[in-house]
């Protein structure tokens, strides 16, 4: 089989030309600052060298189908492969499949219910066994096995009648058309049937402590509480790996994580990255490449729309106009994050850049409330129909930046006759039933709305996703708009990229108008690595920087 890279995405001709022009300069200046991925310039012929990646949480879950945190993703992405891979532009690329199934190539039927997957024929597990369609069937069935402690089952629970046609082909039927499933498969790593089928209890399998995958790196060892070591899989079916060893080092303290980046103990900072307050200093470090990368998460003030104070759209508009976002971003967050008007990640193909920009204007905010009939009472707080414009705001206690944001908002809101009290809770209480079952009045939260880069947000914005009203999902602000519901339903049934884009652009327009939550900013992460580490690409569709270590190599 000819060189079939797993990762070189189908960039347009113009992109390619621009990259060629930049080629000479790319090695000298941080390539990602130019907004373009760094192509593997001259990767070595055989894997050489070692990279140590620092994490502030310890990766501990190595069965990729079990509940895990973002740091575990780094191990999964390196040791395993999924059927497809989401590239930094949000385009699905083949990984274990020979081609990404679509309605055009017949991989997905017109009604979206019948799926046919064709696999590569040259993939082997790390123990030498061939990877086949049986493994895919086994993986998908294990996720919905009631005895297995699986992580998310969204999408997987719709899969029926998985049939293995040949070692490289399988089909299944979906209970209902669900377009996001294709993206979900990018986060569904395949596990080996021949190892796990022998286990009586898949939750306690030896495999979970020493995983065997098809990925670019093989499991070597784990020193608990300290680091995990992987070695190059020289039989890797895709491009790479170029490194002989890959080490994931656990550094429990954020200050120490940064210190060890500074001292050179680690080569790359992954989750939870360099803190914003260290960004300015980090940028001046010699022999380090420090970059601001847009993340997928959006910080917003969530309003519980079932509370009488927030039912009137005028109140939401007035509050939004009374937020001095510039001051918050620059004064409190060191200017690293970006203002946004939408829930969609700014790197997404589905991001709508044409939404009206928020403007901080106290006069305008007062005017909106006056026109809507909210009149200041004797204590200066506005009242309408017996409802006092006063509410509590909650977030994780101990999060200093959010606490300062709250105090800042409290003051500007007071200027327009709105009383905001602060009532913060420990993380475990805040994000439990209080948040999930909509018991808060208003809350500040950083939320990743999309899953695996798919634009579907029904889980956050659809009426049927309000848990407090018996629904299933995470629509904690209890937003309900029939037009949005219809669009979201249509979006999950639509497979065509362009058609979907139109749908989600419109959803963002309506949501911007309705303001069910008030966006504060879109998170950016401060990435740092040693100069000379090449082939590194940031990807806001993955939760870790180490989403594609197969392409990394040291400049010789």
């Amino acid at each position: 089989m000819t060189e079939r890279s797993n990762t070189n995405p189908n960039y347009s001709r113009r992109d390619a030309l621009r990259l060629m022009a930049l080629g000479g300069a790319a090695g000298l200046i941080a390539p990602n600052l130019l907004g373009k991925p760094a192509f593997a310039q001259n990767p070595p012929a055989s894997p050489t060298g070692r990279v140590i990646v620092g994490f502030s949480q310890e990766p501990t879950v190595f069965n990729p189908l079990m509940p895990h945190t973002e740091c575990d993703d780094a191990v999964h992405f390196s040791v395993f492969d999924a059927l497809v891979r989401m590239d930094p532009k949000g385009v699905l690329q083949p990984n274990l499949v020979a081609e990404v199934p679509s309605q055009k190539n017949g991989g997905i039927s017109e009604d979206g219910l019948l799926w046919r997957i064709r696999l590569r024929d040259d993939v082997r597990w790390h123990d030498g066994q061939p990877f086949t369609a049986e493994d895919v069937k086994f993986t998908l069935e294990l996720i919905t096995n009631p005895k297995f402690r699986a992580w998310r089952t969204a999408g997987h629970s719709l899969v029926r009648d998985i049939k293995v046609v040949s070692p490289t082909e399988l089909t299944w039927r979906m209970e209902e058309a669900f377009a996001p499933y294709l993206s979900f498969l990018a986060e569904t790593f395949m596990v080996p049937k021949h190892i796990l089928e022998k286990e009586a209890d898949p939750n306690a399998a030896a495999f979970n402590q020493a995983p065997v995958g098809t990925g670019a790196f093989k499991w070597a060892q784990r020193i608990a509480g300290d680091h995990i070591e992987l070695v190059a899989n020289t039989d890797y079916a895709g491009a790479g790996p170029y490194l002989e060893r890959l080490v994931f080092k656990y550094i429990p303290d954020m200050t120490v994580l940064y210190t060890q980046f500074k001292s050179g103990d680690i080569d790359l900072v992954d989750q939870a990255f360099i803190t914003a307050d260290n960004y300015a200093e980090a940028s001046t470090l010699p022999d380090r490449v420090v970059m601001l990368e847009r993340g997928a998460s959006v910080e917003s003030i969530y309003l519980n729309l079932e509370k009488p104070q927030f039912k009137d759209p005028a109140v939401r508009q007035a509050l939004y106009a009374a937020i001095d976002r510039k001051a918050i971003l620059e004064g409190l967050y060191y200017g690293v994050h970006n203002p946004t008007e939408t829930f969609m990640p700014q790197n997404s193909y589905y991001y709508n850049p044409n939404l009206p920009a928020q403007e901080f204007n106290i006069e305008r905010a007062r005017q909106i409330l006056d026109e809507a009939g909210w009149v200041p009472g004797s204590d200066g707080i506005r009242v309408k129909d017996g409802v006092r414009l006063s509410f509590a705001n909650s977030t994780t206690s101990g999060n200093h930046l959010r606490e300062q944001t709250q105090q800042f908002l409290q003051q500007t809101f007071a200027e327009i006759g709105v009383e905001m009290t602060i009532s913060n809770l420990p993380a475990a209480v805040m994000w439990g039933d209080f948040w999930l079952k909509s018991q808060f009045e208003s809350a500040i939260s950083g939320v990743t709305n999309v899953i695996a880069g798919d634009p579907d947000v029904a889980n956050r914005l659809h009426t049927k996703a309000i848990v407090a009203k018996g629904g299933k999902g995470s629509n904690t602000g209890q937003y309900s708009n029939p037009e949005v519901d219809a669009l979201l339903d249509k979006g999950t049934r639509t497979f065509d990229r362009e058609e979907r884009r139109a749908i989600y652009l419109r959803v963002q327009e309506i949501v911007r108008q309705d303001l069910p939550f008030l966006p504060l900013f879109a998170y950016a992460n401060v990435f740092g690595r040693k100069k000379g580490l090449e082939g590194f690409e940031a990807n806001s569709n993955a939760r870790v920087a180490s989403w594609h270590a197969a392409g990394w190599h040291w400049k010789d």
Partner: protein
Amino acid sequence: MRGFLLNRLSQSLILLLIVSIIGFVVLNLLPGGPLAQFGLDPGMTQDDLDRLKEQLGLNRPLWMQYLDWIWRLLQGDWGHSFRDNAPVLSVIGRHLFATLLLMGTSTAIAIAIGTWIGIRGATHRYSLFDHLATVGAMVALSIPTFWFGLVGIYIFSLKLGWVPAGNMYTIGDGSVLNYLHHLILPSIVLSLVHVAIWSRYMRTSTLDAISQDFVKTARAKGLTERRVIMKHVVGNALLPMITLAGVQLPSILTGALVTETVFTWPGMGRLFLDSLGYSDYPVVMGLLMFSAILVILGNLIADIAVAIVDPRIRLG
């Protein structure tokens, strides 16, 4: 002696039972639980959370969970970690060496230096050395360890480059020298507080011994001052130190929460914090029982040791 041991054993079992009940209840009263961290995961549904809760057996009444846990424990099954699905004892075992290395070294430093300072302070009472030692001990006791640690890293690692900025060893280099190099800063930082404690106790204890009649007798016999101190004073002054060592014994195995975090040391203290943060109930309970057993053992060993060393004390 046998009666003493049996008595102690039965007391200890009751104590362990009480510790386990209190630990279990308090742990489960903490809001959140092991699944809270997945609540904000994109795509995670309430159904998934409920399913996981049931699979982990967390939806059962608390008393039932406790009985299940203690019944298994009595059969030698300490349970499985929620965090990495490994047996609790193996999770603890993986972190023991790191802690033993760090705490063992720092305790040895603390005892050696602390004892010496204490004796010298007592024999040269109100001298410049004694005053400096007293002030030094106060400073060491009142400044938090993490601050010492960070300042140490800043000066000796980042500025001077003499010692590594944490970690137990350089990945890829497992030589003894490499371990020792990494051990210097954290063990010194950690021993600072212990030196202070040991020197204070030793000073008081030595002063006590010095004023005893047998010391006067020894001096009256015409022994040299050095011989009086080494043979008659120190031996007696060390007796209370055995009890102190017994109380400190558990900490050698349970580790240092803060120092291990600052120095990225993969020991038991770190494990405890991580397990607590993750609400990894089986491991937290395992660590709790482990340290409770060590405390009991430490005290027992100290009592027996004192009885052996001091013929005036009889156990029974």
